[in-house]
C-alpha cells in the first residue's frame, strides 16, 4: 500500500528525475526494438519461408541465442567497446546508444526466432492460397504480414517487453549514471540495494503501468486498421 502511495506521489505532480529516467528508458527500448525488428523480421521471414542446407542448425543457434543471458550480452558488448577493445575508439561506453546496442544483441534472436516459426506455421496456408492465385512474391509477403499482424504485433511487443524489463546488460554497459544512463530497472536495483524496498516497488509499479500503456496503444493501432 505504501508503495502505491509513493508511486502516486512520484507521478502527481511528476518528479523531474523520474520523468528523465522514463525518457531514457523509452528511448532505449524503442530504438532497440525498432532496430531488432528491422533486422529480425525480414531474417525470420526468410528463414521461415525458405528451405536451405543448414537450416535446422541455424534454427538451433537462434534458439540458443534467444536464451542468451543478459549479463553475457552486456559483457560481450562491454569488451568490444571498452577503451582497448576493437570499437574503443568510438568512445560509446556508458551512453544510451551502447545500451541499445546491447539490447539489440539480446532481442534480435528473439524477433528472428519467433517470426520464423510464425511464418513457418501460420503463413503456410496464406502462401499456398496467394500463390495459387498467381500473386507475386512481394504481394504474397504483404498478405502474410497483413493476415498475421496480430501475431507479428505480439512478437514486437515481446521484444519491447524484454527490452524495457532488462537490467543485467544495461547496467554493465550503461553504468547506471544518474541523469544520463539510468533507466527504470537499474533505478529499481539501486533503490533495492539501498534498502528502500517500498520506493523500489513504487518504481516497479510505474514500470508496469508504462508497459501496459504501450501494449494497449499498440493493440489499439492494429485494431484500428483492422478493416480487413
Amino acid at each position: 500500500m505504501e508503495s502505491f502511495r509513493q508511486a502516486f506521489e512520484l507521478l502527481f505532480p511528476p518528479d523531474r528525475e523520474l520523468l528523465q529516467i522514463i525518457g531514457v528508458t523509452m528511448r532505449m527500448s524503442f530504438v532497440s526494438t525498432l532496430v531488432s525488428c528491422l533486422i529480425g523480421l525480414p531474417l525470420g521471414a526468410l528463414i521461415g519461408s525458405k528451405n536451405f542446407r543448414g537450416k535446422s542448425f541455424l534454427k538451433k543457434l537462434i534458439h540458443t541465442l534467444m536464451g542468451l543471458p543478459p549479463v553475457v550480452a552486456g559483457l560481450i558488448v562491454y569488451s568490444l567497446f571498452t577503451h582497448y577493445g576493437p570499437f574503443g575508439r568510438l568512445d560509446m561506453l556508458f551512453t544510451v546508444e551502447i545500451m541499445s546496442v546491447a539490447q539489440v544483441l539480446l532481442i534480435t534472436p528473439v524477433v528472428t526466432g519467433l517470426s520464423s516459426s510464425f511464418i513457418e506455421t501460420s503463413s503456410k496456408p496464406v502462401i499456398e492460397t496467394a500463390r495459387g492465385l498467381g500473386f507475386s512474391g512481394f504481394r504474397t509477403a504483404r498478405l502474410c504480414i497483413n493476415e498475421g499482424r496480430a501475431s507479428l504485433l505480439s512478437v514486437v511487443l515481446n521484444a519491447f517487453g524484454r527490452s524495457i524489463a532488462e537490467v543485467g546488460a544495461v547496467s554493465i554497459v550503461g553504468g547506471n549514471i544518474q541523469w544520463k544512463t539510468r533507466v527504470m530497472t537499474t533505478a529499481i536495483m539501486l533503490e533495492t540495494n539501498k534498502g528502500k524496498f517500498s520506493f523500489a516497488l513504487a518504481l516497479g509499479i510505474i514500470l508496469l503501468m508504462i508497459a501496459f500503456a504501450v501494449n494497449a496503444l499498440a493493440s489499439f493501432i492494429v485494431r484500428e486498421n483492422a478493416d480487413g
Partner: protein
Amino acid sequence: MVEIKGLKKRYGERTVLDLDELSFSDGETVALAGANGSGKTTLLRILAGLIEKSEGTAKAPGSVLYLPQQSYAFRGDLVRNITITGAGKQTAVELLEKLGLSHLSGKKAKSLSGGELQRLSLCRVLAKKSELLLLDEPTSACDANGAALVIRAIRDYRDSCGCTVVMSTHSPMLAVNAADRLVVLENGKVEANGTPEDILSNPGIQWAKTFTAGWKI
C-alpha cells in the same frame, strides 16, 4: 494443353509420383481420382509451380490458377475475399450469388462453415481468368446442393474461357457430372484413364469397386 512426360517426384527415397505419359487438351475437364496419398495433390502442385519436380517434364500454360485442398479465409468479409484478386465488386457479388453465398456476403469470411468457406475459395479463383484451372477436391466439404452449385460454376467458367480444368476428387458424382475424362492414380502411377462412366463400371479398378452396391465394410 498440358503435357507430362516421365514426371517423377521423390521425397527422400520414396517416389510419390511416377507418370510416364499424360496429357490434357485445351478446353478439357479432367477429374483426378485415387486413394489418399496416391499423388493427386502432388501432381496439381507441380503443375501450379508450387513445388519442384524431381525428374521429367510437365508443360503447362503460362496462366495457371490453383485452389488448394485446404481452404483459407482472408481477413474481412466475403466480398473482400474475392476482390482481393483484383476483381470488381460486381463480379464478386455475381460469383457469391452463383455459389449460393449471397445471404452471407457482409459476414466475416473467418466465420464461415467448412462447406461455405470452400465455395468462397472457389469464387476467389473463378474471379480470375486463366488457361489452366487446377482444383484440389473442390467439393470435399460440400453437401449435395453445394456440390451441384460448384459443378455448375466450374462448367460455366470453362465454357466462358475455354480453359483446361484439372480437379482431384473422391466423389464419383463430381467426376460423372463435371468431367470429360477421369484419371485414376494409384501409388503415384496412372491406374486408369478414360470416361468416368467406363471407369466407374469397370470392376477391375480398385477405386471404382468402392462405389458399387456390393462394397461393404
